[in-house]
């Protein structure tokens, strides 16, 4: 009862709030005591490595999977009664799933009838995702990008207050990705709350103003993108006038107990957590007969913050996939 009261008290101004949301499949705990708070009107990214529990969480929010424990509210409706809030929710869950033998338009018509929506909504959403010209084609003849766009169109049918998108840019070409970002931003500008999962940090960085990061079903970060940027570590990059002195400089820095990495390609060394020591290190190098030609601060990448928070590293299969696409 206490958790329910807590949830009720916190729900104002939040499109989604969960407390201790947990899902177990047999012995395996996929989502572990997840507390979510997604402000109304925000574009909130949901990031984590593959298998972190993103899709399971989304399915619980959509009433497709019953939580093992925990409570929550979506659009002020109880998570235990999805019918109380799903009329205001549009969703694209994983890959877009439609009847292959039906046209895009008829697929939407089936959903319109089921949700007792107005069929007049169909042309508008098709136009919005750029499928108006191909609406009469069979779904099976659509490209992957067109299928994804039809999925977005289906999600927009009820003119939702909350749009839940699970990996919306999957399968899209670069132009499609840019279009999708633009579409999401324009929807957000209309006041729609958007909860978008992705394993691509660049997506989140480009379109979201808030981020929830999860690892092994648990939240490891929840806050604004600016806060996430603030968590990046900075490093000092130093280049010597004489390339032959690079080793001497690295040794000098190591002797001071600093973490140093020689970057052969650029002929420089990078020093972690040493921005505040820039002047002192410059003087020490000069005193040792090393002439510094370049000294600058370099902010750590968002990916590094992501890896640190999620406990993955660039050697992980998931992380490599994500990082590769980020770059």
């Amino acid at each position, binding site marked *: 009862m206490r958790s329910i009261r807590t949830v009720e008290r916190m729900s104002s101004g939040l499109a989604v709030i969960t407390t201790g949301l947990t899902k177990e499949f047999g012995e395996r705990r996929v989502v572990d005591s997840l507390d979510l708070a997604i402000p109304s009107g925000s574009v909130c990214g949901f990031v984590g490595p593959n298998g972190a529990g993103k899709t399971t969480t989304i399915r619980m929010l959509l009433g497709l999977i*019953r939580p093992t424990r925990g409570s929550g509210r979506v659009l002020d409706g109880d998570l235990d009664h999805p019918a109380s809030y799903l009329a205001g929710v549009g969703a694209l869950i994983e890959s877009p*799933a439609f*009847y*292959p*033998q039906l046209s895009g338009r008829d697929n939407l*018509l*089936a*959903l319109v009838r*089921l949700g007792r929506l107005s069929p007049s909504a169909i042309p508008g959403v098709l136009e919005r995702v750029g499928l108006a010209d191909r609406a009469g084609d069979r779904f099976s003849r659509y490209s992957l990008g067109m299928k994804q766009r039809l999925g977005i169109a*289906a999600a927009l049918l009820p003119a939702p207050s909350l749009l839940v998108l699970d990996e919306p840019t999957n399968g899209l070409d670069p132009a499609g990705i840019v279009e999708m970002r633009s579409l999401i931003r324009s929807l957000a500008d209309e006041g729609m709350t958007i909860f978008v999962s992705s394993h691509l940090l660049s997506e989140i960085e480009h379109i979201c103003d808030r981020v929830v990061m999860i690892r092994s079903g648990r939240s490891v970060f929840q806050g604004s993108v600016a806060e996430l940027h603030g968590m990046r570590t900075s490093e000092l990059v130093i280049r010597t006038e004489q390339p032959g002195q690079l080793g001497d400089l690295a040794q000098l820095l190591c002797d001071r107990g600093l973490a140093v990495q020689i970057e052969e390609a650029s002929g420089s060394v990078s020093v972690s957590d040493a921005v505040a020591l820039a002047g002192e290190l410059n003087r020490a190098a000069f005193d040792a007969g090393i002439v510094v030609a370049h000294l600058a601060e370099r902010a750590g990448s968002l990916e590094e913050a992501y890896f640190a928070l999620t406990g993955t590293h660039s050697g992980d299969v998931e992380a490599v996939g994500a990082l590769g696409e980020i770059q």
Partner: protein
Amino acid sequence: MIVAAFRSEWVKLKRPNLLVGTYAGLALAASLFAILLFAQAPARGGGDLPSLAQLAQPNGLIHGVNRAAVLLGVVAFGIAATQIAGEYSLGTLRQLLVRQPRRAVLLAGKFLAVLAFMLGAVVFASLVATVAAFVMAHARHVPTGAWTSSAGITDLARALGDLLVATVGFTIFGLVVGLLFRSSVTAIIVGFAYLLPFEAVVTRIVPHTATWLPGQLLQAIATGGQEAAGFPRALILSAVYVVIAGVVATVVFVRRDVTA
């Protein structure tokens, strides 16, 4: 809300490939049974087939329909199983449940739509087979006056009613098997293997089982009762099976997580 689910399902069912394919296919198959029955009917009685004299009786018209009963039932089972299992294998169920989270309502609407589709197909097939029977009767000089008598029309209506009741049973069993297996291919293979060879082998080895095996009972209903299982027993026992199957299907559908 059930009407909304029905109308939504109907968008899928009315697609030309399925609608024309099913209706024309069943009509063709039922007509073929009627044509072959009249073509092969002996002039005198004896043997498995009714004689031309028997076909001239008021109930002569329903012999063909009865012969096609198993086929019609199996098709109803297959289409019902495919329609529900396909929602899982295509992943479309998650879309549907977001728009209609009351799962029992969605299931009821889908069931009624598939049932209406199949009942329409059976009625259409029966009408076409009846026309084919009239044509064949003319070709083999079988008098058809008794068929259009009040007794003949009553017999035909009763036979059609029996067939429709059996179709309801086959459709529900199809939905249950589709729900349990969540794969169209598996549901069809398992369902057909059970209804056709399995039950046939079991009833041949242990004839008494024909009085309680569901497929045999539905066949008995479709044909107005059989020697092994009379119509009242078949109807009551089938109703029990159908209720149990319906409850199981609803509970499974409502409670199971949708992970597809």
